[in-house]
């Protein structure tokens, strides 16, 4: 419980930094902190395999990608990339407007039932290659498509 409190504290405060930081690179790094602490929470919630995935894919892959993105569009060409915000009040209002009914809904449920314990990677593996095979394959196609799409989108017309 304490671990959860600590991790969630870190996660939320770093998430706050993500949305408030004035430096884009900092924002990205704060996101990495958020994702790592989320992975910790995953472990607490009995999903060690997913925690690993989270660390590898997100913290390893996505953050790197993001940084590339920042750098690619960064100051090389002399264009300032500010990381400002505006309409904070409206944004906060919107966030609260979402939060209020959601929290109300969450806390109006009496009991979610007992915890079932950690899930083995093997279980997930069988699920992927068993009942969810088609979805799994579709996902791989989707990823491929996303990759190709990204390449097509950013390809320079005049190489």
């Amino acid at each position, binding site marked *: 419980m304490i671990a959860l409190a600590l991790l969630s504290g870190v996660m939320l405060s770093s998430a706050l930094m993500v949305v408030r930081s004035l430096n884009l690179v900092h924002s990205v790094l704060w996101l990495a902190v958020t994702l790592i602490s989320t992975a910790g929470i995953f472990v607490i919630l009995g999903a060690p395999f997913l925690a690993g995935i989270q660390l590898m894919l997100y913290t390893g892959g996505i953050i790197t990608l993001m940084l590339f993105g920042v750098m690619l569009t960064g100051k090389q060409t002399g264009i300032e990339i500010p990381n400002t915000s505006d309409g904070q009040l409206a944004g906060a209002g919107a966030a609260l407007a*979402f939060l209020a009914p959601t929290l109300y809904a969450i806390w109006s449920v009496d009991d979610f039932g007992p915890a079932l314990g950690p899930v083995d990677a093997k279980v997930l593996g069988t699920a992927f290659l068993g009942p969810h095979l088609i979805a799994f394959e579709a996902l791989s196609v989707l990823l491929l498509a996303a990759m190709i799409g990204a390449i097509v989108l950013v390809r320079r017309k005049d190489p």
Partner: protein
Amino acid sequence: MTTAATLGLVAVLGPLVVALLLAVNGPVRRTGVGAGALSVLAAIANLVAALMLANSWWGEHELVDSTEWVWLIANGETIATVGVTIDGISASMLAVVAVVALCVQVFSWSYLSDEPKADFGRYYMWQSLFLFSMNALVLAPNLLQLFMAWELVGVCSYLLIGYWYTKPSAAKAAVKAFWMTKLADMGLMIGLIIQYRVTGGFGFHEADAVALGASVGVVTFCYFIAVMGKSAQFPLHIWLPDAMEGPTPVSALLHAATMVAAGVYLMVRGWPLFDLAEDTRLFMALIGGTTAIFAASVAIVQTDIKKVLAYSTSSQLGYMVAALGAGDMIAGYYHLTTHAFFKALLFLAAGSVIHAVHSNELSNMGGLAKKMPLTAGTFIIGTLALTGTPGFAGFFSKDLVLEALLHGAERNPVLWIPLACCLIAAGLTSYYMFKVVFLAFFGEPSEAAGHAHEGGIALSAPLVLLAVLSIGAGIPVMGALTSQWGHEAHFHVSPIGLAGTSAMLLGLGAAVQLHYRGGSLPGVAALAPVGNIARSEAVDKAWRVAYKQGLRTLAAGVSWFDRYVIDGLVNLSGVALLLGAGRLRAVQTGKGGDYVYAVLLGVIVLAAWTAVVSA
């Protein structure tokens, strides 16, 4: 099918077949001569059939034969038939039509010989169509078929008046003729509708008249409206003079002898109905009398030979209508038959003159008696018949008309008015006809008349035939008609007959004095204002105003209303929507954040909705 019905069908279908053949087969039509030959052949067949019918059944009062086919049904029951009906009236009328039609078709052959071949073929196609329509009208077994044929002859008239379609005046005259008669035909349609509502049919026999009961007055009045249009009665006569834009043989056949007489024929056919309608007949007599004198006075001031004859036709039709109005069917019908011959003769002779001098104007004629003795002779015979010179056909029939009016006036004094009108009109007729004779055939020849010469056999043969009939059709026809209805209608010298003859002699005297001797008469100058009124075409102008300022303006108003009020509302709603949408477009800022807010709003609303539903 009996012989009578078969002959009737031959008369009707022969010309129809020719007309259809020429309509469908362009190459034959465009040979011109071939088309004409076919058409004339059909007219000859028609004449033979008509004469056979007339020979056997002329004077038959009773129905001889009737062959009918179902034409319209309602709830499985017949409501209208088409076919042919042979009885004394239709047989005699058929013969009249057949004779004049053949004369005219033969005459046209020469008259229109200079026309392009295609147009020549077109002319004969329409002639055949007209002959079919007219025969269908004459032999109609009920008033509905009569009406249908009535409209068809109207169309033929439209087409033939507009034969020289490149002449704007001819095109206008054709349309005008159709409009005027169509306007009047609404009366016939209303009458038929009412008759159908009351009796469930369109018959014209005694039984139908009885079945009509109290409605007979309304129905016959409606029918008479149509008669006024077709038979060029005041004030619906204005199309007839303009119709002279057509070729002269057309004027002879349609606008003098047969088609315009269809109005009178309708009343003869539907006599059982008209016989019972006292009030309608009074109206008829008054209209007839008015037309007789009005048209005769206008004829006096015309300088165009065909217009004189046109107004004369209108005037003579007024005589027939007046006679029928006075309650004497035989007098009216008798005058119809004799008039058909002598007026056709006059038109054809006038056509012969026009053919020779290439002008309609009397001032371009003169002294033609020496150049064209046959034409002059036949024209004079026609004139004598028309003016009612004793011994000629017109004399007997006109006498009968006057007598009928006199008899009527003894019962109903109002009828003195039409009687007086007709008497005066007789004098006027005599004056303007002899004026034409003197101006065209005597005196100094004009430049154009100098080169005039008689036409060929095709031109002269019809004239001779019609001249013979104009002289001889008097007593025999009267005899036949008399025997037909067992009616006392033989000729005798009477005061009214003498009055009519005196009026005619007065007119002749005036014409001789003014136009033959070139002298003058006291009081002629005083009549100048009357002449101006007659020349003013006031009735024509009134109709033109009603059309231009009335109907056209109304139409323009309705159209404006449609474009700017009805359609305006439609457009306005469209514009309102577009402008409103323009306002609403401000919502679409194009900023990503705003769309997120919108999505969020949707999520929250959905969530709230779910909460409410589950609660």
